[in-house]
């Protein structure tokens, strides 16, 4: 693993960047006793099915008081384990932890009495109302009866939940539940607040509101906050960032200090006359390029050094525009961790054995007035869109927006309440089985048989798809060689590295040479590097005429799509190209609008409209 260039403790002379950071520059001499949380050589291992897994490997850090520290790393990096250790819910194998100067291992009860901890799935009692949930936590935290009315009013106002005191927690939307969970941990103001991935799967508006609450707590109540997240773009919202990867801390500094490491190596490349995927492929073959990422119409490039990027390898007649751009936190992550030698970008291109142009130029997926009701709840409410041949089409929305329900109907897995949809020319109401034969499906979770070897999985699924004889063995050979799975043929699938698991899942979905590929949250829980690899594969499939439909709640992932719809509360808010979506929304001072800005703008417009019509409708999770 590459050594991080950032020194472990805040050595940067630059002022903190996040909105609520204290104005004083951090000094390396801050004594540990003043720290809100100190970890010293903490090691934690788990034994799962007789295999030992090291979740945290000698972690040391000191979280400073009175600010938001972000614990950032991809899924499986050890964030939740670290949080639970700090809350006294787990005991370390080695090392010591002190929270608010109390030994966590020795006096967990004392620590728990003075900190607030919000687990990833916060324990709201769904059959209790908002107020009853608050009452319970006030009782458990020993809040005096007289102080409650004022504290509740203050907290509910902060979370925007005043109007919902009597509503059952189970009937709140995902974002509101998350805010209520946060409020419940705050009934008695803690001095240290531990938030484990509070923003995961929450829609961007609620996400922004959650951040505002956190900032408010730091400013008004002087709270120290440790917040974990898998979204690298949230780093810039923190005063300090602890970057964690594979159980080790890679760096601890201001978010800006990380991105400054790659200052002068980030570029934006535009070539209006060239398809964006071809441009990306050409750029990634350039030896000077470390990483090339599609961002709307442009390609964002991280180069290997600070020498100005030369657009070599592109057709000479094409006009290419290269401009330096400000580095982001993710650029640092990629630059530090991307392995230069293995998995060169070209390896991820997938060449299909045969391509089909049967549907070229046609709409491969048509959806008209699609409705799915559960009782009187509309999970999908008159949705319509069209997907063209060879297109990558995205369904973007928060958890509970109706993406997965739409998806299941398109796969013929869920009956349609009303409306029409066709896939590859087949009507799903009348010929669901025939339509399914044209569809490759890759589910959110690794849904292959973990205790079968790679080869056994390929054999099983090829016969499940009805492949026989020479075609079957041909497809298995193709899958093994194209996805570089040959060395792993006899390996148990569950012990594959995450990236290879994903390759296997994709290989299985492509066994029967489908014309349409459905991807349901394909990259959730995958680190940014594996996500890049995956998208190179998907791009190459689209170039060969495979139509791809993908659901995601990662705003950034929408940039890879040719076109997309944004969904909320079961309805389509907007349809178009990523560029068209972003048009008309401002990104704040001095930066271009992002997909997230567009999403927030659309959602707010939608909510205002809904509020005019009726009282706010709580969306019920449809997943």
């Amino acid at each position, binding site marked *: 693993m590459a050594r991080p260039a950032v020194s472990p403790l805040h050595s940067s002379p630059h002022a903190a960047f996040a909105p609520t950071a204290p104005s004083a520059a951090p000094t390396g001499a801050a004594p540990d006793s003043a720290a809100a949380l100190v970890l010293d050589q903490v090691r934690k291992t788990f034994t799962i099915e007789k295999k030992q897994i090291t979740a945290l490997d000698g972690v040391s850090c000191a979280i400073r008081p009175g600010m938001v520290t972000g614990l950032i790393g991809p899924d499986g990096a050890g964030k939740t384990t670290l949080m*639970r250790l700090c*809350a*006294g*819910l*787990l*005991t370390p194998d080695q090392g010591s932890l002190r929270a608010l100067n109390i030994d966590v291992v020795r006096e*967990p*009860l004392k620590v*728990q*009495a003075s*900190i607030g*901890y*919000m*687990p*990833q*799935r*916060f*324990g*709201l*009692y*769904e*059959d*209790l109302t908002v107020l*009853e949930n608050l*009452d*319970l*936590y*006030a*009782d*458990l*935290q*020993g809040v005096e009866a007289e102080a409650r009315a004022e504290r509740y009013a203050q907290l509910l106002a902060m979370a925007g939940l005043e109007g919902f005191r009597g509503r059952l927690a189970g009937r709140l939307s995902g974002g509101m539940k998350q805010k209520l*969970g946060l409020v*419940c*941990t705050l009934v008695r103001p803690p001095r240290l607040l531990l938030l484990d991935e509070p923003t995961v799967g929450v829609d961007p508006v609620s996400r922004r509101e959650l951040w505002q609450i956190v900032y408010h707590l730091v400013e008004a109540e002087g709270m120290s906050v440790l917040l974990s997240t898998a979204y690298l773009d949230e780093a810039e919202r923190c005063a300090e960032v602890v970057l964690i990867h594979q159980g080790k801390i890679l760096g601890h500094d201001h978010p800006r200090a990380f991105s400054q490491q790659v200052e002068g190596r980030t570029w934006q490349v535009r070539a209006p006359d060239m398809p964006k995927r071809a441009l990306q492929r050409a750029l990634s073959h350039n030896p000077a390029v470390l990483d090339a990422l599609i961002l709307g119409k442009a390609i964002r490039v991280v180069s290997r050094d600070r020498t100005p990027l030369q657009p070599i390898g592109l057709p000479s007649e094409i006009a290419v525009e290269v401009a330096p751009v400000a580095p982001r936190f993710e650029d640092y992550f990629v630059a530090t961790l991307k392995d230069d030698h293995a998995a060169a970008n070209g390896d991820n291109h997938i060449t299909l054995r045969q391509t089909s142009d049967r549907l070229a130029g046609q709409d491969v997926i048509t959806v008209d007035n699609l409705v799915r009701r559960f009782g009187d709840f509309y999970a999908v409410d008159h949705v319509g869109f069209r997907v063209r041949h060879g297109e990558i089409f995205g369904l973007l929305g928060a958890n509970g927006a109706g993406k997965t329900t739409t998806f299941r109907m398109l796969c013929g897995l869920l009956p349609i309440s009303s409306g029409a949809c066709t896939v590859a020319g087949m009507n799903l109401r009348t010929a669901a089985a025939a339509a399914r034969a044209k569809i490759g499906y890759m589910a959110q979770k690794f849904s292959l048989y973990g205790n079968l070897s790679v080869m056994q999985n390929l054999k099983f699924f090829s016969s499940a798809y009805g492949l026989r004889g020479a075609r079957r063995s041909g497809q298995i050979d193709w899958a093994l060689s194209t996805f570089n799975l040959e060395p792993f043929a006899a390996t148990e699938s569950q012990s594959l590295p995450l990236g290879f698991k994903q390759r296997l899942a994709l290989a299985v979905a492509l066994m029967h040479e489908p014309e349409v590929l459905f991807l349901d949250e394909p990259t959730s829980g995958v680190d940014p590097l594996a996500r890049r690899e995956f998208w190179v594969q998907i791009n190459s499939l689209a170039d060969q005429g495979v139509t791809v439909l993908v659901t995601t709640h990662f705003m950034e992932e929408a940039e890879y799509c040719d076109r997309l719809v944004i969904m909320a509360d079961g309805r389509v808010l907007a349809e178009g190209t990523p560029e068209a979506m972003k048009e008309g929304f401002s990104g704040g001072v001095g930066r271009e609008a992002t997909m997230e800005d567009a999403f927030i703008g659309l959602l707010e417009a939608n909510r205002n409209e809904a509020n005019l019509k009726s009282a706010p409708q709580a969306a019920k999770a449809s997943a």
Partner: protein
Amino acid sequence: MKPGRLLRVKGMIRKEWLQVIRDPSSIAIAFFLPMLLLLIFGYGVSLDAKNVRIALVVEQADSQSLSFAGGFYQTSYFAPLALNSIQEAETALRQSKVDGIVWLRHNFGRDYLRKDSPPIGVIVNGVDANTARLIEGYVQGIWFGWLEQQAERAGKKLQSPVQLEQRIWYNPEVRSTDFLVPGVLAVIMTLIGALLTALVIAREWERGTMEALLVTRISVVEILLGKLIPYFILGMGGLALSLAMAHSLFHVPLRGSLWLLLATSALFLWVALGMGFFISTIFKSQFVAALVAMVSTFLPAFILSGFIFDIQSMPPIIQGLTHLIAARYYVSILQTLFLVGDVWSVVLPNAAALVGMGLFFHGMVYRKTRKNLE
């Protein structure tokens, strides 16, 4: 008492209570299932054989044969079907039209008058061993009754070496309802105490609410108390409902004292709650907890408690096993209290066994429950 403890326990109890009221499945387990069980066992299931269908084959219609056969028509235990030949009767038995055959050979009357013991053929369908044994007994009863009658008519006492004077104490009518309904109480208390508790705690683990509880100031004792008290009250409520039904619908007598019944029931409920907690400290998914609770508490309470199947007639190994089943002790207390009275020599040893089991389970729960996720 630690500061704030009362507040925390009260908060937990209120929360638990609201959840019970709003969750239809808790209500179903606590109230509807007990009612259903009581109705099934009170009205439906009866271990008495009544109107047993038998084939009556009388080969020679002489006065002795007819008078003996008449006995079968007069009792409510049998619903006889007169057939002409044993072949027909065997066919009927094979087709399950009758459960037994009583066969009076052509020489019955003659042999009886000759003071020989005339043969009566009794063939019983042994598939249902319980009914088979009952038929056997009833036929013998009719036989003795008839002999007595015949002797009386001849003006003399029946010459028999032993006089059988049968008296059935405590349940003179031998109504199975009277001992089944008290047994059902044990099953109901197990259901509420063990199954419901194991379920609700596993649900807290599954929904992630336990993790949030653990990081508050609440201690292990307080969590346990907060769960114990509401479900104890719920269980006693279920008991009260069942007692009322037993009394008003099924007219089961209560010969012992009510306070002793309530005290021993509270004791058993405490043991059942201990078992429920114990299961939920080990199994943290609702599905597994429910299965384990079913197999380890509910089914044994049915089968091995002596509620339906007599413990004395079980093989010795199984008899030994029943000593591990808390319901066994409770059933024996219940049946004594309902049908006999306050028999301290039965109640005390059984209650002592319950105390022992309760201490074991609650002790294990206290030892095994930690305020962490390890």
